[in-house]
């Protein structure tokens, strides 16, 4: 076994030289989706997306192929989204800034349904915002996007056991946030 170690110790064979354009072309969709999973609001998405690729541009030379490119990119997204969360610049969404919904869904809704939908989305956003980012991602990918734990593990670059653990922790955190929210509403006498 020891004889095999030198080979195993070497880094995985690198692919073709990595360039900003290659990363962008292959993984822009992944970054875009990851930022949304991490809670970046539609109004800020373009800015944060650009920010990620500015960092990628600056740091690409440090990528050493010890992980998948998507794992590395996800790390950049995580840090950028974490900064974004801390910064005060996140705008409150004005009514006119509400995310554009898919036309077929909007057409089929009455104004009342649309209002209920909007309120549910706001509530869900509020509860998701209460989750740690790493848990939030797993929760959204599993519960909203309905990806399997294996798929999540592959995309995020963590063992599947960690996916299970984070999902479990996310659910607990979500439940607590929901309980806090309900208690708050009850205090106010809201329905």
């Amino acid at each position: 076994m020891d004889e095999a170690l030198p080979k195993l110790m070497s880094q995985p064979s690198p692919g073709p030289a990595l360039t900003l354009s290659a990363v962008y072309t292959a993984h822009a969709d992944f970054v875009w989706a990851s930022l949304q999973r991490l809670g970046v609001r539609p109004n800020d998405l373009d800015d944060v997306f650009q920010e990620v690729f500015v960092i990628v541009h600056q740091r690409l030379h440090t990528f050493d192929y010890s992980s998948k490119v998507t794992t590395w990119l996800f790390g950049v997204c995580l840090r950028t989204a974490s900064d974004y969360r801390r910064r005060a610049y996140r705008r409150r969404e004005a009514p006119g800034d509400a995310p554009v919904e898919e036309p077929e869904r909007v057409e089929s809704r009455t104004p009342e349904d649309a209002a209920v939908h909007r309120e549910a989305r706001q509530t869900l956003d509020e509860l998701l915002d209460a989750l740690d980012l790493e848990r939030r991602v797993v929760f959204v990918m599993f519960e909203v996007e309905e990806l399997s734990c294996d798929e999540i593990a592959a995309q995020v670059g963590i063992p599947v056991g960690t996916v299970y653990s984070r999902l479990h922790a996310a659910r607990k955190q979500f439940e607590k946030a929901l309980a806090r929210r309900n208690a708050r509403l009850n205090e106010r006498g809201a329905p």
Partner: protein
Amino acid sequence: MSDPVRWRTEAGGAPDGVRDLLRQAAAPKALSAASKAQHAAMLAKLAAGTGAVATTAAAGAQFALSTKVMLGLAMTVAAAGVGVTQLRAHRSARPVAASQRAHAGPLGGAQGRVVASQNIHSYQSVIEQAAPAIAAPVAVPLGPAGEAPRAVAEPMGQRVATHAGALGVASRPRLSSGLAGLGASRQGASAAVVAAPTVAAPTVAAPTVAAPSLAAEVAPSGDDELRDRAQFGDLVAASQRGDARETLRLAEQQSDRFADSQFREDRAFYAIVALGQLQRGAEVTTRAAQFLARYPRSPYAPRVRRIVANQP
């Protein structure tokens, strides 16, 4: 291991009202072709702005983006955007989640892929021209801003909190079936795990007081998965205390007991960490070779390599 039941389903055991909330949730929206082209153009400018610096380092191969190139860039990007947008209009509706899953962009179908790739290639080549010297040298270690995600590069601290969270409270679906039996005293043990030092110093000396064992509180008749999880929590806690001998003992004991565990990769990693702390170089080498052969793409692999490299 099969996945937990989703909260969206009736059997998922979601708290009241959460199923309705989740039904209203939307999967991430796909990046539109127009937006993608727009960002590509901005990145091309960015790359061009730093291109001079990069090329200076690369033996003075100066690069300047001329007005003509900029004009060509804008036209190419616009063409790419229009082409892809037109294709989007023709494509049949495709669920957003599916497109995200495939990571293949918003287009579906062979024709779409071909033309889209041509268009994408066109602005790829524009960026390529604008940033000729961004090729990645391989040997530089990961830096703070761009390093692998914390969970990958530093899984231990993160995972302690994660696993402690997993152990700390009762829950619903199969992930935690039976956790309710752990009782309130487990909360204290869980807190002890969270409060443990975040990075174990490479000390070998065993602490005199061990944290209370989570596994000891699990009824012997408890379900295997619960015991597996609880005992893994003990292992992580031992590692966090810097108790290498105990970590190793638990890792080996649990690896035998839970051969098909979801944590087997983690246990193998913790055993290597412990052996490294105990400076048992030969065993580190052997275990590392086994680990890397079995889990070549493991997020732990870089750390395992570092541990081997740091052996005297």
